């Protein structure tokens, strides 16, 4: 195994309270160590910035909905194809790159760990197959459980709370799929959409046919995840995404889970004032105020970037709304028992009031937030924009003059309805960028070996030229080290690496099978015994994070 000494760089490792100190970082056997021998490869990092590899806590990179988006938009693939080389596979780019290109491009950006944030458990075998073909990064996926009819039944039987069978069922599902965490998307709302295009308006609406409410789903599944001690808390895409006035729902959801660990995804899309059917306004400051009083809750922003995007979501009702707004392509897919899916190619326009407001609300969340450990970077790739836009987003946060210039190009009526014109002069430091792009996501995911450069951490390191143009700096790392081997050098990929599948595991009573099997027989068209994915070829190489140990 290679030994590497990264010498003389300015190290930004906020998890270790290191803020730009000039020091060496030593790597051996895939880990950060305190020292290496004289024969170690020396990377001269003088004048450069050294950070842990990036960790993307919320993106959509693999699985049936991602692949459906590829098939839906062949014209988008033509941009920037990736030629095969002696060691690399070919691929195509655009908003939803092919799997190999996805891994390569994340690596070229300095990211070494990515979370697929919404996988139907029924499709786990497909998700795992795609992830096996996504190289260079360690990866995990969250399984969708907010509209699972079997769980609805268990919740109803428990009177709306956490019961041992429910807790065991959640653990069983993770074990059966290789998933890492639990995602709730529009709890109850997707089921109503599939029934008759219905929708949830309040957390206390009854989910027709099941006798439970979204609030009970949040409490029961969120509570089960909490009691199981999974490394990542329940990951929530709240009800009423994109609806003016939805901040009420978001705050209600946060209050419902207050006191328990929870992560709220792409909260920009959930921070709107106004009334349904009307124009939205920003209520980001209220959400941030709530967050500041509730450190147990974290969020990722889901920043909108002006330009093309590919909206894809389990919240299929939202896609139908975009279909009617846009009139263009629309794909809907209903997955039995578990979830739905909607896909609409979309373009965010700077001159459009709503789009500019969304852009402004995202920046408000970043810039008004008190604690960067609570507010993490995401574009909900590719919903708000491609992960390739992260460098531009970082520049927006670090460079006020650039931000002001971009702001002037946006719809001014919308911008005036945000706090961005109120003398908001905050500029993120490099350490704050390190927090929102690796340290905080890794900590929130319970990945103790990632997101930092302390002794024993994974040897995932990104080294940047310290350029004044922060977009250029973060778009083209000088080196990326993955698992202790140099993966990117001078902007070129030098090797291929399969990456690890990250899974979590919690103990459960195996007798839960007797609870689940008859319910499967009633609902699924796949036999209970054939549902789990055990194939080593799909689940390995893996790192399993045990519950209760993060």
């Amino acid at each position, binding site marked *: 195994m290679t030994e590497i000494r990264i010498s003389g760089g300015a190290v930004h490792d906020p998890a270790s309270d290191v803020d730009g100190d000039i020091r060496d970082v030593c790597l051996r056997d895939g880990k950060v160590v305190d020292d290496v021998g004289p024969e170690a490869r020396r990377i001269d990092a003088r004048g450069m910035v050294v950070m842990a590899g990036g960790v993307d806590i919320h993106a959509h990179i693999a699985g049936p909905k991602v692949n459906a988006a590829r098939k839906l938009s062949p014209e988008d693939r033509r941009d920037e194809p990736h030629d095969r080389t002696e060691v690399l596979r070919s691929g195509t780019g655009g908003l939803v790159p092919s799997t190999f290109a996805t891994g390569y491009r994340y690596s070229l950006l300095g990211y070494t760990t990515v979370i697929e944030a919404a996988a139907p458990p029924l499709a786990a075998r497909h998700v795992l197959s795609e992830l096996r073909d996504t190289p260079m990064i360690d990866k995990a996926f969250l399984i969708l459980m907010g509209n699972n009819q079997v769980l609805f039944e268990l919740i109803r039987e428990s009177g709306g709370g956490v019961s041992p069978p429910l807790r065991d069922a959640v653990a069983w599902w993770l074990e059966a799929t290789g998933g890492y965490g639990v995602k709730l998307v529009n709890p109850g709302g997707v089921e109503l959409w599939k029934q008759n295009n219905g929708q949830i308006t309040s957390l206390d609406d009854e989910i027709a046919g099941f006798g439970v409410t979204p609030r009970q789903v949040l409490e029961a599944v969120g509570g089960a995840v909490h009691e199981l001690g999974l490394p990542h808390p329940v990951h929530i895409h709240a009800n009423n995404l994109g609806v003016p006035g939805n901040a009420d729902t978001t705050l209600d959801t946060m209050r419902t889970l207050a006191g328990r660990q929870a992560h709220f995804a792409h909260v920009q899309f959930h921070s709107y004032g106004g009334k349904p059917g009307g124009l939205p306004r920003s209520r980001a400051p209220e959400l941030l105020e709530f967050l500041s009083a509730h450190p147990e809750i974290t969020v990722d922003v889901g920043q909108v970037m002006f330009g093309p995007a590919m909206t894809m979501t389990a919240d299929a009702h939202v896609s139908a709304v975009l279909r009617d707004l846009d009139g263009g*392509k*629309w794909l809907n897919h209903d997955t039995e028992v578990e979830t739905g899916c909607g896909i609409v190619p979309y373009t965010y326009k700077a001159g459009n009031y709503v789009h500019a407001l969304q852009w402004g609300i995202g920046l408000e969340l970043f810039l008004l937030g008190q604690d960067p450990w609570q507010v993490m970077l995401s574009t909900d790739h590719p919903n708000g924009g491609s992960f390739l836009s992260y460098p531009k987003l970082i520049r927006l946060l670090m460079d006020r003059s650039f931000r002001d210039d971009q702001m002037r190009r946006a719809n001014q009526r919308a911008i005036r309805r945000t706090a961005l014109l109120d003398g908001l002069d905050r500029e993120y430091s490099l350490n704050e960028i390190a927090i929102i792009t690796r340290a905080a996501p890794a900590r929130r995911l319970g990945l103790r070996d990632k997101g930092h450069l302390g002794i024993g951490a994974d040897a995932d390191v990104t080294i940047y030229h310290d350029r004044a143009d922060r977009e250029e700096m973060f778009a083209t790392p000088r080196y990326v080290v993955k698992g202790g081997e140099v993966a990117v050098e001078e902007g070129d990929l030098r090797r291929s690496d399969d990456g690890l599948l990250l899974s979590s595991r919690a103990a459960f009573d195996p007798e839960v099978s007797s609870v689940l099997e008859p319910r499967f027989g009633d609902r699924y068209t796949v036999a209970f015994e054939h549902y789990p994915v055990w194939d080593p070829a799909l689940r390995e190489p893996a790192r399993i994070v045990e519950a209760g140990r993060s």
Partner: protein
Amino acid sequence: MADFGPVTCAGCGLLCDDVTVEMSSDGVRARPECPLAAQWFAVRMHPPDGAAATINGDAADVESALARAAELLRGARRPLVHGFEGATVEDARAAVALADRLGALVATGQLEGPWPGAPAVPLRGACTGTLGEIRDRSRVVVIWREDPETTHPRLLERLGLDDVPGRTLVVVDDRGTATAQRADLGLSWPRERDLEALTSLHVLQRGLAVRPSELAAELRRLIERLRAVPHAAFVYGPGLTAGAGAQRRVLALHELVRALCHERHVVTLELPRAPGIRGADDVLAWQTGYGGAVDLAGGHPELVTATQPLDDVDLRLLVEPGQTAAAEIALGGPAAGPDVNVWIRTAAPGVAASGTAHRLDGVPLALQAPRPDVAPTAAVLLTRLLQEVER
């Protein structure tokens, strides 16, 4: 021999995974009863005796066949990788990897025959659902010019049309098929009028009038059925997607469904022409970004349209092409057929080898190996070929 099951049957795209196979001196029987399943297992349980491989028709060992295959592939100017009708996802992953290295053309669809037009779904999208969604929610199921009683014998059962009261089966066909005989409402017009019928249905759905005719009367009966329910499904397949004008027909169907979706929930389900195609096409899409046919000759994937000439193909690599033939890979000249240069028997997925297949609705399923075989899988052979070619 002992019975085995339940296992997944890849005899058609339904991939029923509740199948028990009974072996007796009378032959092979599948339970639940399904003629395709019985035939599929029977063929694969008893692969033909003979060589494990051939080179130019002469028996050979697998290693020699692989060496010859690698030699042919290295020398090919314009190789084509195709077939996949009986392939697993693992086979397809290995095949596309090899194609990438070779700079080959890969096709999961049929390249010959009348040009159906580019796929319709990328033009406007689609609304789809899994079998369970249709079974549990759709009150009207319209089967459009397909005969699943023959091609997917358990489809109606799996969609709940056998035993769930209050369901209506509508069949559009003029052929008097076995499926049409089970219809609650049968509609009949010539295939050439399908596009007219679909666009007229769209007009009727909007509450507008169409010119009175026999066809219009039939269409009104259908639209009335659809309007009366909150949830419906359309099942279609090669009857719409094959042949000249297919793109317009399929586009018209999806536009109709899209319009219907404003007032109710309507989904579609496509019956593939062979069970391995869905998984192979998914693999092709995730590895290259495109489904259908992809040209890797330029060093990166490029979407192929059938308007491009294929007459420069000088070597074909056929991957698991058949359902009734023994599992195999084969290399041959431009007219792959009896004069195959290299042929290697493979372990039949779902009987002799495990793997993954994607059901016609996209649901991934495990294929089991109740009768393991010493023969290698296509995935193993193709990976070996990749290693040989890279030497």
